[in-house]
């Protein structure tokens, strides 16, 4: 294991201390717990608050999306582990302005149970909550079982849409409606080239041989559906886009936004090579790319690999997509 860390069990706390220092202009803690992070200006008056949470090791997910035009708060777990219900409750109380709180997170057992518990506790304290669960990972369950799928990089789009809608002054119900609508229209497919190592475990959780790749792998190393010879960037891109387009029933004339996401160790240069091919494929199919995001948006420690997310747009989603946001990691003017 080659990592810049001190004691493995302190990785998350120390990381958060550094992060809170670096972004003290945008972030603060709730209840003095570095694992409970909210917007500096929380609670934001007259706005539905959006909360997310999940395990660490995915920066900028999750806490990296706190900020104007994005999330109000995040409960941070240990590496690849859910935050606790009491953390979520504490963040909930800190961000609620009275208009209710949306829990928006990825579909993983631990997270679901803890957000559920937190929601029950919040209700007892008179705070209205609702939940939308990200399930964008096409590879994780077959068609027909969409709501069983894992949530991965497509969460970025759900955050964006929910937050933009909330900023327009919408009610919790309206925010939920738009977010669920976005969720039905976003798909992600990933491919990995190398594993990642949990600091406390000290060795990779799986192995991908030299010259091999794995399509469909999840952001915690959950295995994909195809393991085989590493193909060219163009061929891989075609495969991923093919799967997404079919699952999303993309047709000529559709408008989309595309997110090309690096999993950790993959150079930006390679993401742009993939971006070029996506452009060519969609140009060819007369599908309009309204906006493309390229970079690290949801990582898996030092895993080499990438994912492509596609959001199918309608007029409302398009309007929301272009609203600005300002987070520690990504900004849109």
């Amino acid at each position, binding site marked *: 294991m080659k990592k810049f860390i001190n004691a493995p069990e302190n990785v998350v706390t120390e990381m958060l201390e550094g992060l809170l220092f670096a972004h003290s202009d945008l972030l603060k803690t709730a209840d003095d717990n570095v694992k409970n992070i909210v917007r500096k200006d929380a609670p934001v008056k007259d706005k539905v608050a959006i909360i997310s949470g999940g395990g660490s090791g995915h920066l900028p997910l999750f806490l990296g999306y706190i900020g104007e035009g994005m999330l109000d708060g995040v409960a941070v777990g240990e590496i690849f582990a859910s935050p606790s219900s009491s953390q979520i409750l504490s963040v909930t109380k800190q961000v609620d302005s009275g208009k209710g709180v949306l829990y928006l997170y990825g579909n993983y057992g*631990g997270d679901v149970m803890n957000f559920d518990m937190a929601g029950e506790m919040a209700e007892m304290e008179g705070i209205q909550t609702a939940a939308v669960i990200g399930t964008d990972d096409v590879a994780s369950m077959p068609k027909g079982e969409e709501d069983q799928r894992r949530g991965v990089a497509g969460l970025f789009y759900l955050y964006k849409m929910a937050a933009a809608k909330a900023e327009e002054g919408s009610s919790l119900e309206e925010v939920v409606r738009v977010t669920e609508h976005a969720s039905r229209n976003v798909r992600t497919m990933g491919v990995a080239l190398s594993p990642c190592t949990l600091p406390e475990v000290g060795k990779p959780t*799986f192995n991908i041989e030299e010259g091999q790749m794995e399509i469909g792998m999840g952001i915690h190393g959950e295995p994909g559906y195809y393991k085989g010879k590493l193909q060219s960037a163009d061929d891989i891109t075609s495969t991923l886009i093919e799967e997404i387009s079919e699952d999303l029933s993309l047709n000529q004339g559709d408008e989309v936004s595309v997110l090309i996401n690096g999993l950790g160790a993959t150079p930006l240069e390679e993401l742009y090579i993939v971006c070029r091919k996506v452009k060519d494929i969609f140009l060819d199919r007369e599908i309009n790319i309204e906006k493309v995001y390229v970079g690290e948006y949801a990582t898996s420690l030092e895993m080499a690999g990438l994912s492509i997310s596609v959001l199918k747009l309608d007029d409302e989603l398009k309007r929301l997509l272009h609203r600005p946001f300002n987070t520690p990691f990504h900004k849109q003017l």
Partner: protein
Amino acid sequence: MYSEELNDEMNSLEINDIKSIIIKLKTIMEENKDDLCELDAALGDGDLGLTVSKGFREIAANIDELAVKDIGNLLKRSGFILADKVPSTMGTLLASGFMQAGKLLEGKESLTPNEAATLFEGMILGISKRGKAAIGDKTIIDSLYPAHKALEVAAAQELSLKEAFKGAYEQARLGAEHTKEMQSKFGRASKYLERSIGHQDPGATVGALIVEGFHLYINEGNK
């Protein structure tokens, strides 16, 4: 360290026995940490060993401050610690299990064989309420349930605690092994579909280890 000697005739578990068992579980989970991580790496994200060993470590570290008289309270507060300190899937489920068992055993200062069976019934109840999994879904339930059945039968037959837990452990172990043939229906592992078959479920293994902790303490006086 807390309990009086269990002699062959003794047929109840005092609160100090439960505390000692928890401390024993801490050691067992620590010893099995790497194996559990490896099992979880094959079907999940490879962290299960960390979660459970940390979970029992946290309870054990606070065991003296937890209720001294009431077993129900001890279990409930152990559940709170798990919920707070190891909120992963397994941690949260165990937390729910401990809390539910604590509810069922409220006020008890010692457990009869029948009440020992109730402890495991509560565990299963809490876990399935929170996680919605049933028998055969390839989860921790698949080792806890047969153990619980064995304890109930043993109590009905008025077997000693030693006999009861010997049988329960055997059933739990078999139950865990049996998960190899099952397909995962819950958690990360469920995404493997039929490819999950062939691997032993890490959670079920934890279930068997918990029963083993009771068994070893009671049968080997391993305090």
